[in-house]
């Protein structure tokens, strides 16, 4: 639910003014007129919808590479998106963060993934920014440098915790191994990473239809 008829997370903003709902992020701004009094709620969702549904994976580039020498765990920041729901109907999916994509592999045979500049967080309970947090368990027996984390988005789990005006978003604990300085996530643990979290079930908006259009492949 919106607190004081407004929610602002990063670049995303949802406002309920009289009979209008205004949603905006760096890529969209839209106004909806409410004919009847419908409750508006905002739920976190996987970062796949904005500005178009394009990637099935995410590459988290660590701002500072980390060194690991044995099986260890660390917390990192991750992006997410916000589903603005009126009653049962999704109005729009917003991104609180600037969206970027990258190729993992070559531009010819690689994969297009969502890209995010991620930070390693020492203590998750003191994190005050808008990004979500996720725990990564790395399995290794030798000393390795980790520059990024790669995950298939449909394998991830999302959790949310509401604290007054704030919405804290967490990812399920991810487990993976290192190859070429990148942690490839192979599994996500079933249990919640910390206590008091509520699991988010609708991770991908079914009605998001802005898949690519073939005619845009045309060249000038």
């Amino acid at each position, binding site marked *: 639910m919106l607190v004081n008829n407004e929610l602002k997370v990063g670049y995303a903003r949802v406002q309920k003014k009289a009979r209008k709902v205004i949603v905006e992020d760096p*890529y969209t701004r839209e106004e909806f007129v409410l004919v009847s009094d419908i409750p508006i709620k905002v739920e976190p969702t996987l970062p796949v919808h*904005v*500005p*178009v549904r*394009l990637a099935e994976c995410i590459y988290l*580039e660590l701002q500072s590479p980390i060194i690991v020498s044995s099986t260890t765990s660390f917390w990192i920041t991750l992006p997410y998106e916000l589903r603005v729901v009126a009653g049962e109907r999704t109005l729009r999916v917003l991104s609180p963060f*600037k*969206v*970027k*994509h*990258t*190729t993992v592999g070559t*531009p*010819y*045979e*690689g*994969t*297009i993934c969502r*890209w995010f500049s991620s930070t390693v967080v020492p203590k998750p309970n003191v994190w005050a920014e808008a990004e979500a947090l996720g725990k990564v368990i790395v399995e290794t027996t030798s000393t390795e440098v980790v520059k990024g984390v790669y995950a298939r988005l449909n394998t991830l789990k999302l959790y949310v915790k509401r604290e007054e005006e704030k919405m804290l978003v967490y990812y399920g604990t991810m487990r993976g191994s290192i190859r070429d300085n990148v942690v490839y996530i192979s599994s996500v643990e079933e249990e919640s990473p910390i206590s008091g979290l509520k699991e988010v079930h609708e991770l991908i908006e079914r009605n998001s239809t802005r898949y*690519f*259009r*073939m*005619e*845009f*492949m*045309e*060249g*000038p």
Partner: protein
Amino acid sequence: MFPQDTIQKLGIMFETLPALEKQILLYVEVAAIIGVAVVIAILIRYWLRRSLRPKVPPHVYAGIEKVVVYGIILIGIAAALSPFGVQLSGLLMVGGFASIVVGFAAQTVFANFFSGLLLYIERPFKIGDPIKVLDYVGRVEDISMMSTKIRTWDGVLVRIPNEKLMNSDISNYSKSVARRIDIPIGISYKSDIEKAREVLRKMLEEHPLVLVYPPPKVYVVDYSDSAIVLKLRCWVPTSLWFETYMELVAKVKETLDEAGIEIPFPQLDLHVKEPVAINFPNKERQGRFGDVGA
């Protein structure tokens, strides 16, 4: 295995058989040869269905199967009829001659057919791929034995004979996940190159569909007559290439305008060495502009 005398005895028996029985045996022989040909054809059809059918489209497979199966049966029939005086070699010769005649007559048909087969083997594109071939750019709608149909972006259905397609350059836009955009843009000689590069690079980095890797680049490519030419180079998802291209081209001017960087138009400085007489036909104008002219 059989003693020589037994064979001789059988030969004598056969020679002494009544003509009707000989005739019956001949028919049995003919039926047996045709039967063997049919069995071979069925076995080959079975092998084709297992090995070839999963690899080629149904309508192409149907044609191949018919040609092979009926071809074997026809050869079997021709071989079986040889005891009746129908010579296989003669038939083959006539068939060969007929093939040459038909081949010449239907050269284009066969060329298209075999080009179609080669396209299936090589697979430079599949149905649904966006391609550029000859002067056409569009999506492949159908690949048949004789031709390939392309729906161009302006909605026209173009039928291209497979032979023509086989001998042409084909660009398939769906074979890479990312595709490069190159945008050349001229800035005036008065402009700060570094500032222009910086604002344009930032513009590319801000765009959600410009890929982080390979990284976007902005660099000077030419000092032309009226402008310093910069080039913006970035990679975007292939599926959104044109949409992103359109957005970026529009945004380049907006970005340069905001930064106060001029995009010049072609201009020429003219230096006159000696005074030039200008003839004004209108007397009033002559008065206004002085006594220049005749």
